[in-house]
């Protein structure tokens, strides 16, 4: 008779899915909760920087696209919180951990959106980086997470194309619009590279996560893939990526590129990014302002249940 641990190991080794009722090691569960929650929080906090331009979108078509996109992010948050709930942690608990600073979200959303071009840049670079991170997660070992990722990735790549299309449209516009696009890319390029996390040497959890099949690639691998993918897109767009060290390396078959400012990264992770305080204050306000509505819904549901029993 095989032990639970052996069954688990075998499932992971065969790239089969672990399901909510299956036995799993506590460390696996905890790591998953942390990762899925962080991902869910990123979707929800990520609504803010783009939502900042919802009321100012410069055409009705763009307003509709942006509104639908931000709505999709709320939907992604919803799936991911549900996936997390299969591991025994409620959405409310997760939200409270987010607000208390006990769980993180992607540091990219601590950068401000300063022009409408940022809506396009976030689609192109930020969603692009997210896709690089997430496509491998469609094969992640935990079933509900993997299935959520399949759906999310499909929508993300749609968002990425829309973002890129906004930028190409703006590049065909006025000089001011082209300058806006370049300025936006200048601001988001490095933070996008940081989205893959610290260099592998400084990422101690990666090995265990890969063994568990929660993570499928190292940070540096994914970062390289993102750079290689983005360079020709930038050329097609007609913008310059703000990295003087960026060049094709024939030997490696990859682009060489400069080192992100890891000190800045650490400062942002620690809470001193441009918008950390603002993002959390926004979420807290919305959460607190909505408390009476959630209570009312609960009270109403309980009363209705009682009445239908009576």
């Amino acid at each position, binding site marked *: 008779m095989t032990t639970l641990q052996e069954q688990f190991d075998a499932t992971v080794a065969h790239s089969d899915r672990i399901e909510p009722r299956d036995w799993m090691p506590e460390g696996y569960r905890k790591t998953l909760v942390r990762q899925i929650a962080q991902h869910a929080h990123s979707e929800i906090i990520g609504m803010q920087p783009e939502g900042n331009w919802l009321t*100012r979108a410069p055409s009705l078509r763009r*307003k509709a696209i942006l509104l639908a996109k931000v709505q999709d992010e709320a939907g992604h948050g919803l799936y991911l919180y549900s996936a997390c709930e299969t591991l025994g942690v409620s959405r409310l608990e997760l939200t409270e951990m987010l607000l208390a600073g006990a769980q993180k979200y992607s540091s990219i959303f601590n950068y401000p959106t300063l022009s409408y071009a940022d809506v396009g840049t976030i689609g192109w670079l930020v969603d692009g980086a997210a896709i690089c991170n997430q496509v491998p997660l469609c094969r992640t070992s935990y079933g509900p997470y993997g299935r959520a990722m399949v759906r999310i990735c499909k929508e993300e790549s749609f968002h990425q194309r829309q973002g890129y299309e906004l930028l190409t449209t703006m590049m065909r516009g006025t000089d001011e619009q082209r300058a806006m696009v370049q300025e936006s890319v200048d601001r988001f390029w490095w933070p996008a590279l940081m989205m893959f996390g610290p260099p592998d040497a400084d990422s101690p959890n990666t090995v265990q996560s890969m063994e568990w099949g929660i993570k499928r690639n190292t940070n540096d691998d994914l970062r390289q893939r993102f750079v290689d993918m983005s360079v020709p897109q930038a050329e097609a767009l007609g913008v310059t990526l703000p990295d003087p060290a960026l060049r094709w390396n024939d030997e490696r078959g990859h682009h060489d590129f400069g080192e992100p400012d890891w000190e800045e990264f650490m400062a942002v992770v620690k809470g001193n990014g441009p918008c950390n305080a603002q993002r959390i204050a926004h979420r807290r306000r919305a959460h607190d302002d909505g408390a009476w509505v959630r209570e009312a819904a609960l*009270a109403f549901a309980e009363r209705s249940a009682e009445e239908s029993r009576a």
Partner: protein
Amino acid sequence: AAELATYCLLLGDDALVLSQRLAEWSSNAPDLEEDIALSNIALDLLGQARLLLARAAAADPAVVPALPEGSPAPVEDALAFFRDAADFRCTRFVEGPNGDFAQTIARLLLFATVRLAAFERLGDHADPVLAAIAAKGVKELTYHRDFAGRWFLTLAQGTEESRRRLLAGLAQVWPLYPELAEAYDVGPEVDVVLDQVFAVSGVERPEAGRRVGGEHHTEALSRLLAEMQSVARAHPLGVW
């Protein structure tokens, strides 16, 4: 044609302005489900606005404001982003800030009920385009009304605080309701629906007096437009 254009502008501007207000709930709603639902309603109304503004422009090109030479803005954007507040045809009912969730629900219930009644009738309007827009809108507005109605009941019967807020929100939006009903030319059929919702919720139909001045906008509209139009106007020749 001018009359058709004016009517389409009323319907289109109301949808546009309320869509803008509802979009303000994005990332601010009480929970994810409501965030998604309110965005969805905002999207539906935005879709209606786009069709109606285009119809207005086709029916009477004189309603479209002059754009800077060389501007590539389509007519829907010319109307949305380059008209001044005084040229908007929306009712005051949709212009004001959202208030809290209860006030938003109260306004949405009244708005969707009135607009649904009007759209049901417009299904056989002489203008086939407007009739088609209305037919499509009926399904959307039914959902909006039902969403608002469910929440109206929930808040009325939920907690003491939710009931207090709902009544306050209703009192806040009610004085401009007669103008809305008049602009959409709806009557008792709407009262029947509303009275049902009120009865089920245990809420009395408010008695508040009607507000004078319906021939002009509120102070809220020019502020809403200042924000909405800021990027488009900063780049009058922009391509989006």
